[in-house]
């Protein structure tokens, strides 16, 4: 039991748990204290000062985010002194800020702009420093843009990259008025250890870190009569998009999303869930093949645990930080890239289209997918497999630009022949989902029976714990798999690279031994991806996860190997998992990188 203490906020007495900050306590009193450097996902920094409040008996104002409540504290959040101070702090922040809101990507969804608007900052009493500083814009990354002239140095990005991702690609460099957010030696983001995960974008309160957007490129393609524009949508998009368009977090908008994409003019609207199912077929087979090579053939060149490879930020992370472990990665491309490779081959052939005229677009909850699509490894169709990657946020912008009343759209369904999916494909969007989907298929392949979990729900791999473990005992396998008799298949799941780091370290040290690990770079998996609607916090991510599992539960088919279009593609095009065509189009290898 936490002890309760009594405090007074704006003359209203309330009881709060001992140790809660004034910001949290104020919420209980129905008061919202403005914040900038504070974020629910991160440790307290207390550097922006917009949250200042007056505490009776104290001369100086205190930062509400960094001050714990004490018994009997009397707090004023809206006194004249507080309001004046707060306004000046915002003015000072703006005096160092390139506040050309109308030219800014964050216009309309910016915490600094909102404060300036709430407090009606309409004068510039301080010397405007922004024009005097030689700011540079880093736009070399295919995933993101860093514009220091929009940075208020709140260090949310630094804390995000360190605390959630354990990457620390960003740091606070120099000091005093020269302090700035920098990479190692101020190299472009594209040249350093940054994984392009976009978590810093999700947590940045301003336009200093944003995704590199491809909205105009996609509009151009849609307007070009000679182009056949195909779009795929990732599993997590359907449980996030609604937040940008007037729905509560956790609302599933699959049908409306498809309808909106059709209205935008895409020639075919299909589903990354299809290629998620395909990934399971390939990766599940790879796992079984590796198990056989290790357990039966004792092949020293085959590595276990097998690590999933669908998270491109994880791929870049392992390339930088654990280059000796690249052989553990599944050779499967991510669902996005499998889809891309098939669009310009299988799909083109089936509908007699010239792949040269196909523009392949994907809607992803992820900024790292932009980088991934741009990788030299991703041209196996003979063309660039995925031409443009848009985030969930960019799609929402296009829907608004097109004047579509999203709330009133009727549900539509995905097009063939890469639009069918199962519940197993959907749960790729949540941490643990790839593992669950793979186990549903692999276990059945090996034993001929369904996974021994009620309703196919493998609960041990679900949830928001940073690292989760599960094991499944294999008994009475089919004759082909008799070598697995009595084997306890050990699995682990990690999300958020800081947790991935601890999992990897335990594997490197030999402390943990697994057969299969699922890694997703972002907290909560793709549903918490760097391209998802802002804001993000644990509560919102939990709601999106519930929506993902509800979507799975509602699907008539919930195992990848049941997907009729998957059966069709194997019979008509790929022949078999890990076959020659698969090998050429759906698998790849990665390269080691430096650790800065």
């Amino acid at each position: 039991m936490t002890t309760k203490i009594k405090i007074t906020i704006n003359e209203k007495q309330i009881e709060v748990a001992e140790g809660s900050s004034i910001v949290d306590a104020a919420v209980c009193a129905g008061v919202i204290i403005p914040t900038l450097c504070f974020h629910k996902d991160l440790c307290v920094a207390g550097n922006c000062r917009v949250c200042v409040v007056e505490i009776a008996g104290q001369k100086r104002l205190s930062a509400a985010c960094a001050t714990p409540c004490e018994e009997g504290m009397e707090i004023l959040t809206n006194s004249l002194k507080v309001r004046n101070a707060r306004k000046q702090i915002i003015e000072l922040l703006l005096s160092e800020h390139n506040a050309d809101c109308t030219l800014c990507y964050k216009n309309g969804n910016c915490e600094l702009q909102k404060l300036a608007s709430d407090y009606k900052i309409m004068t510039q009493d301080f010397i405007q420093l922004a024009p005097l500083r030689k700011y540079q814009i880093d736009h070399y990354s295919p995933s993101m843009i860093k514009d220091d002239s929009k940075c208020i140095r709140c260090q949310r990005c630094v804390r995000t990259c360190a605390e959630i991702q354990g990457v620390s690609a960003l740091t606070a460099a120099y000091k005093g008025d020269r302090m700035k957010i920098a990479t190692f030696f101020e190299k472009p983001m594209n040249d350093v250890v940054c994984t392009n995960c976009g978590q810093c974008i999700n947590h940045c309160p301003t336009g200093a870190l944003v995704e590199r957007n491809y909205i105009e490129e996609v509009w151009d393609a849609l307007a070009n009569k000679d182009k056949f524009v195909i779009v795929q949508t990732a599993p997590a998009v359907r449980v996030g998009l609604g937040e940008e368009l007037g729905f509560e977090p956790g609302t599933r908008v699959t049908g409306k999303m498809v309808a909106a994409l059709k209205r935008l003019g895409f020639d075919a609207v299909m589903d990354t869930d299809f290629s998620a199912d395909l990934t399971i077929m390939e990766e599940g087979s790879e796992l079984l093949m590796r198990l056989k090579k290790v357990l039966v053939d004792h092949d020293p060149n085959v590595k276990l645990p097998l690590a999933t490879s669908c998270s491109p930020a994880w791929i870049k992370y392992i390339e930088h930080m654990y280059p000796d472990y690249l052989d553990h990665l599944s050779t499967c491309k991510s669902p996005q890239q499998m889809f891309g490779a098939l669009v310009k081959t299988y799909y083109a052939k089936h509908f007699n289209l010239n792949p040269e005229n196909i523009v392949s677009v994907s809607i992803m909850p992820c900024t790292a997918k932009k980088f991934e699509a741009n990788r030299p490894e991703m041209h196996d169709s003979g063309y660039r497999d995925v031409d443009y990657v848009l985030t969930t946020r960019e799609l929402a912008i296009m829907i608004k630009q097109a004047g579509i009343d999203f709330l009133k759209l009727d549900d539509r369904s995905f097009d063939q022949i890469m639009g069918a999916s199962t519940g197993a494909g959907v749960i790729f969007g949540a941490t643990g989902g790839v593992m669950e989907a793979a186990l549903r298929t692999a276990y059945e392949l090996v034993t001929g029976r369904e996974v021994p979990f009620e309703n196919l729900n493998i609960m041990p791999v679900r949830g928001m714990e940073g690292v989760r473990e599960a094991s499944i005992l294999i008994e009475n396998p089919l004759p082909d798999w008799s070598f697995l008799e009595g084997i306890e298949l050990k699995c682990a799941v990690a999300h958020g690279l800081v947790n991935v780091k601890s999992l990897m370290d335990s594997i490197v040290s030999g402390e943990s031994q697994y057969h299969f690990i699922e890694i997703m770079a972002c907290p909560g998996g793709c549903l918490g991806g760097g391209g998802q609607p802002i804001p993000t916090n644990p509560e919102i991510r939990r709601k999106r996860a519930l929506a993902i599992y509800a979507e799975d539960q509602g699907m008539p088919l919930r195992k990848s190997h049941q997907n009729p279009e998957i059966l069709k593609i194997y019979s008509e095009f790929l022949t078999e998992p890990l076959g020659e065509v698969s090998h050429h189009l759906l698998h790849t290898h990665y390269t080691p990188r430096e650790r800065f």
Partner: protein
Amino acid sequence: MVAVLELIDNLAGQYGRDRSSLLPILQGVVKQENYLSEYAMIEIARALNLPAAEVYGTATFYSFLEYKKMGKYLIRICKTITCSMKGKNQVLMAIEDMLKIKVGETTPDGMFSLLQTNCLGFCHMAPAMLINFDVYTDLTPEKVREILSGYLNKKGGADDTRI
């Protein structure tokens, strides 16, 4: 003089490989190399298992940890008000004139770099400057020329007494 990699390894051995050893190791490298190269910072990050950006952030925070290549003799002249009032500008001009470099620059032969620094704590003997770790006070243009001549004559000689 040992190679940087070996130096870092020795320093890490001496101070330990915890995060808290970062500063002494950075200082140790600067002591020998006069600055922290990109390469040195990457290797320090590797030795302590720290993110390279964090090493860079720390190095750029401290004034006496240089992260750009510096000359063999690093002159830091005090830029604060007492030294200014007691003729620092004339001294600075004398140095610039003699070495043909401006503040922030290094002579083409890599012997001298010129920087300004915050208060050295020698206001009572202003103006003051440092050359590497040696303090020179009560400077005048004549005196500074003499001091620099001493270094210029030493230059190329085998006796390297700078540390």
